[in-house]
């Protein structure tokens, strides 16, 4: 209980720090929202009036304090650019990004874990070299490139989805999933390659440890040692790695959303930064931070259930 409280406090602290940094960064970079909104028709008077309207004429601590107070009372403010409550603007986009990330994560876990385990068990096979090269290659291709390639083949060629007309999750769930699937694949490929390699080396290191030799010398067969003992020991770093993957998928989705014209958080974030639409950027940054922290927390919890020793460490 005490542990949970500590975790939540850490989580909140992280988010406050992240939001402060984002707020400060925006204050420092050039370009101000009023000037951008008025464009080439701006005059000093118009800018001053708009700044007053948006509350930008107040000093930095007051604005940040205001935002923080709003945040803790569940009010994320209103977008400068869309005159819409930030939450209303973000929620549908967050859903899209979440589904994209979930699909991609599912692909990574479902493909890389069995594949990693399998390849770790086999050394010096005839296809080992081919496999390593393929793994390297997959790791090296950036998702945007795979994205373009997949569009070429599956949209322009085979016409399995229509690039550029994302149906919308609420309107057509399965159609949307099919569309997102291809983006998820392009996002997943390099991470799959990385996870496989990571898994392979972890499992192999474990296999060389004394307890494995002991277990085998006592007459256990190799496969059961692998599944019963090695896997459990190798799981901890892999779970931690997957948690990082979860965070990186979201970061990667910003690029992939652009390539696939998917209306998710990433595109909104990029557009809002260039519009200097602070309330929206703040909210998205905090959501992303929350996502990363939650992924880390989830990994910790899973690891603790795998390895009870970590649980003791957590309390101290």
């Amino acid at each position, binding site marked *: 209980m005490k542990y949970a409280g500590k975790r939540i406090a850490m989580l909140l602290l992280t988010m406050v720090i992240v939001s402060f940094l984002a707020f400060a960064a925006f204050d420092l970079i050039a370009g101000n929202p009023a000037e951008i909104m008025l464009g*080439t*028709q701006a005059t000093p008077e118009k800018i001053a009036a708009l700044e007053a309207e948006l509350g930008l004429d107040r000093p930095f601590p007051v604005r940040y304090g205001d935002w923080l107070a709003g945040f803790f009372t569940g009010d994320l403010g209103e977008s400068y*650019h869309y005159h819409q409550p930030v939450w209303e603007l973000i929620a549908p986009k967050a859903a899209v990004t979440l589904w994209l990330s979930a699909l991609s994560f599912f692909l990574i876990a479902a493909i890389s874990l069995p594949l990693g385990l399998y390849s770790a068990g086999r050394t010096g*096979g005839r296809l080992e070299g081919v496999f390593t090269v393929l793994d390297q290659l997959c790791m090296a291709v950036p998702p945007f490139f795979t994205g373009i390639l997949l569009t070429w083949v599956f949209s322009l060629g085979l*016409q399995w989805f229509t*690039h*550029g007309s994302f149906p919308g999750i609420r309107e057509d769930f399965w159609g949307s999933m099919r569309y997102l699937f291809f983006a998820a694949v392009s996002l997943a490929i390099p991470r799959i390659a990385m996870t496989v390699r990571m898994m392979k080396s972890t499992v192999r290191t474990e296999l060389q440890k004394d307890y494995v030799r002991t277990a085998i010398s006592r007459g256990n067969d190799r496969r059961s040692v692998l599944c019963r003992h090695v896997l459990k020991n190798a799981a901890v770093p892999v779970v931690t790695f997957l948690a990082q993957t979860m965070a990186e998928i979201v970061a990667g989705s910003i690029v992939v959303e652009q390539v696939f*014209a998917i209306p998710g958080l990433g595109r909104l974030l990029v*557009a809002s930064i260039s519009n200097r639409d602070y309330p929206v950027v703040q909210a998205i940054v905090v959501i992303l931070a929350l996502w990363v922290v939650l992924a880390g927390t989830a990994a910790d919890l899973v690891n603790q259930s795998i390895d009870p020793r970590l649980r003791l460490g957590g309390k101290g």
Partner: protein
Amino acid sequence: MKKKLTALLLLVSLLGAVLTGCGDSSTDPAPEKDPGGAEATARANELTVGIAQDLDESLDPHKAVAAGTKEIMFNVFEGLMKPTSDGDLIPAIASDYHISEDRTTYTFTLREGVRFHNGEPVEMRDVVYSIERCAGDAEGEPLIPALSAIQSMTADDTTLTITLDAPNSEFLSYLTLAILPEDYTEQDTAPVGTGPFRFVSRTAQESVVLERFDQYWGTPAALEKVTCKVIENADSIMMSLQSGAIDLFAHLTSTQVSQLGDDFYVEEGTMNLVQAMYLNNAEKPFDDVRVRQALCYAVDKQAVIDMAFDGYGSPIGSSMYPAFGKYFDESLTNYYTRDVEKAKGLLAEAGYPDGFEMTITVPSNYQPHIDTAQVLAEQLKEIGVSASIQLVDWGVWLSDVYAGRQFQSTVVGVDASNMTARALLERFTSTAGDNFINYHSERYDALFAQAQSCSEDAEQTAIYKQMLEDLTENAANVYLQDLADLVAVRNGLEGLRFYPIYVLDLSTLHWTE
């Protein structure tokens, strides 16, 4: 044997990893739904247009500033007058108008039976409200400063009389301002106008949906529904065109156009922009007219157009583009022909025999301007001027270059907010708030004042032409071109018309099949 089996298994699992896409999609209940997208939209009498940026924060036509917003919302709003594709003005919400001999009194008759998109009839009070809103200075400065020339407005149910302080032959152009319903408060998010299309919905960073307005007073639009989809990414734009997701996309580059394929044809118009290397006339070394002229002699416009734009584009020589036939003076275009020796001579005279270093600031979101700057930098090398290109965010450009005037030179395109010469030329008067190049010419200021008090159209045109000459002779900027507007149109879609201002008229578009 076992080894072979393992190898096979590995291969299968790898294939599985690569081809999971096949498995997933083939289990989908309706995998063949989308391919005929293009034909399906044709039959449904609908159109999907791609736009490269989302619309303004406010859809209120009196407040919108972005050219991209006006471009689309042109279809939703109308004024007493409206522009035609030839650059003329025709009555819209007014059925008729009359201008007094001395050009100080304008009389308009309200057209009967015009309705707003919410079903309410357009009444004279709406017209008066809209004009007063633009002329009013509630927020420090009127939305349209030129309307301050109005001395009085009198109106009854059908006739509006506007009296001006002084004769003004451009006044009619400003009455293209949108007429809005008086008691409606949601123009920002759910705009209501009188145009051939009504606004239906907007989703941030996704799309804007318009539908044909069936009670439109004029020729109704052919299309029933138009969806404008926001696609920023250049690769994604091309793939969305090819996949059939969008049917029309304007402002493409020549490279993009060459990749289009057989489903499209290309219409070429002009962007109606004055693209130039704008020089800060108050900043050394550009405060010296000889240096500015030297740059003009060093630059070969046609080479810029050929190299960066595959030959698409019309060269210009002053702050006016060819679509404005009335003011465009062809002879200014070749006022400076490339002459490296002469340029070097002028530089030596000005005290820079070995050239100098300069910075060209370019907004990073406009690839055409970046490409242009690169070609210019090469050309300037030949006269010993070494130019470095600095890319900045659009927001930074607006605050540093445009508002702050902290720059040496910049490559951008300047547009006209309405169809008057004043819209392009007033900014270079020495006291203008948007004179971001700090141009200062007493002759120019005097000519502008003279043009404003001129009641004779021909005479006024002549004065504006002299102002254009002044800009050219003093080499205010290194004028380059009016960019070509290349529009990809899906085969079967016809009726695209270009205007001398930055708008996309959707009302004439129609499918032929």
